[in-house]
């Protein structure tokens, strides 16, 4: 798989609609075994953004997206997507551990069907929607196989297709590529960018890889140690698509090293009581 050379540099610049709703996190609090992970955490950003979340180990990156995606209850606070609650918003979630997130008793194709089955969509319409998605992303995986018969990268690709089939307004990605090798990671980052550029989906990514966090984001959310606050919200104004060349360009490097400075400063502070 010649992943990196597949990148097309002549992609048009993103087209975004005029009005963009706001995503508002207000007063989020969460305790684990009596100690604060979050206390009165606020954050505003806009729909259609690609938000990367980066921070010290154990600061609660996954906890944050699990709360704002509705998988984990919060002790206090609210999340509104353009005024709607999580339950009223169409979201999808891609897990780090694709092995445990796909359903091994279903063929890959049935895994992709499943979210639509849950929405009581008839087989004919499901197949049409899946065909459309596959043409868009040029899927070359044998989807009649069971997940465990596919490679790690293919399994995560199936997870992502399963997440996209419902055309979510918000897509949550929890360290989606951390179990893949570097070649596959670069390829998947390129795929995710294409998806982001071709749709209005808001993307929220947790990453432990700063390069990845900056490469994919319109905004990088840098977090502190617990109780977790915003260290800085960094804009990434680098043109799309961002290929392997981008990773060495001065603008990109400058933003990346700024993020690294902030991160190092937060790590150096040590755990707070």
């Amino acid at each position, binding site marked *: 798989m010649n992943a990196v050379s597949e990148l097309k540099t002549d992609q048009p610049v993103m087209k975004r609609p005029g009005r963009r709703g706001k995503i508002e996190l207000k007063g989020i609090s969460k305790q684990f075994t009596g100690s604060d992970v979050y206390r009165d955490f606020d954050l505003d950003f806009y729909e259609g953004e690609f938000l990367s979340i980066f921070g010290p180990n154990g600061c609660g990156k996954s906890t944050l997206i699990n709360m704002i*995606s*509705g*998988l984990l209850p919060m002790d206090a606070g609210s999340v509104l997507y353009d005024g709607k609650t999580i339950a009223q918003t169409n*979201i*999808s*979630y891609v*897990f780090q*551990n694709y092995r*445990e*997130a*796909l*359903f*091994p*008793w279903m063929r890959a194709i049935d895994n992709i069907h*499943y*979210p639509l089955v*849950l*929405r009581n969509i008839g087989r004919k319409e499901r197949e049409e929607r899946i065909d459309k998605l596959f043409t868009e992303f040029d899927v070359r995986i044998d989807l009649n196989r*069971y997940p*465990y018969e596919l490679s790690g990268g293919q399994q995560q690709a199936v997870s992502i297709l399963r997440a996209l089939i*419902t055309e979510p307004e918000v897509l*949550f990605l929890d360290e989606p590529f951390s179990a893949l090798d570097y070649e596959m990671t670069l390829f998947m980052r390129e795929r995710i960018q294409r998806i982001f550029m071709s749709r209005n989906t808001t993307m929220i990514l947790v990453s432990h890889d700063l390069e990845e966090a900056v490469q994919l984001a319109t905004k990088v959310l840098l977090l502190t140690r617990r109780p977790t606050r915003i260290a800085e919200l960094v804009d990434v104004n680098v043109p799309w698509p961002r290929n392997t060349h981008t990773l060495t360009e001065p603008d990109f490097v400058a933003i990346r090293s700024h993020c690294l400075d902030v991160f190092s400063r937060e790590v150096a502070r040590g755990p707070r009581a």
Partner: protein
Amino acid sequence: MSTELTASAAPFDDYIARFRPRFYRFVRFAIGPIALFAIWYVINAAGLVDQRLLPSPIQTIRSLVRTIGNGSMLMDVGATMYLVLQAFGIGAGLAIPIGLLLGSSEKVYRSVEFLIDFFRSTPATALFPLFMLIFGLGDFSKVSVGAFTVWLVIVFNVAHGVMNARQTRILAARSMGASKWRLFKDVIFFETLPQTFVGLRTGVSMSLVVIVVGEMFIGSTSGLGHRIIDAQISYRLADMYASILISGVLGYLLNYIFILIEKNLIHWSGR
């Protein structure tokens, strides 16, 4: 000419190559039983054990062939299997739904865990007198002890299967908006299947044990247990050994059938 020769020889070589590993596997499989019969034969021929206690393997096999031939052995196998399957069916049928329910609420399971572990640890045979009081001396008291034993082991395994279901898969289905019922039927049920099969396989073996013991001591007129004890009392030892062999074959086959079903049904297990 020479090319033709190799071409015609090739399929035969393929044939050999394909069957050789299978042949070796069969040989390895057969070494144990053949060795057992050989040792048995030598002990018997050398008179190391009183021949009145240990008939020769040839006498035993002859008795086996004769009793299978005249249908009496198969009648007893049939009678035992009839009870084994009843006990297993009743036990499993009641255990799977209850195990699913108990497992889905850890709090509820913890409150009955001690009872399940206690009765699981109680020898099933210790319950025979009690069940005879309740259900009388007929076959149903055997079936009920068997069913109770099967029920316990399957409830235990199913409930643990539910409690140990992979959280990520459950979260994945929830993030897609699966209702509780869909989550249960589409995800948790399948997650539980490998552990359920551990319970089913153990259960069917225990069912055989309980029924055969029951046939020995609760007024039976047929079945392998009855046959074994009857042969022992009337000193037909070749028949006794033959019946023990058949009981072993039966237990082995029951287990093997479940392994086959498991392999085909739960293809994802351990992958």
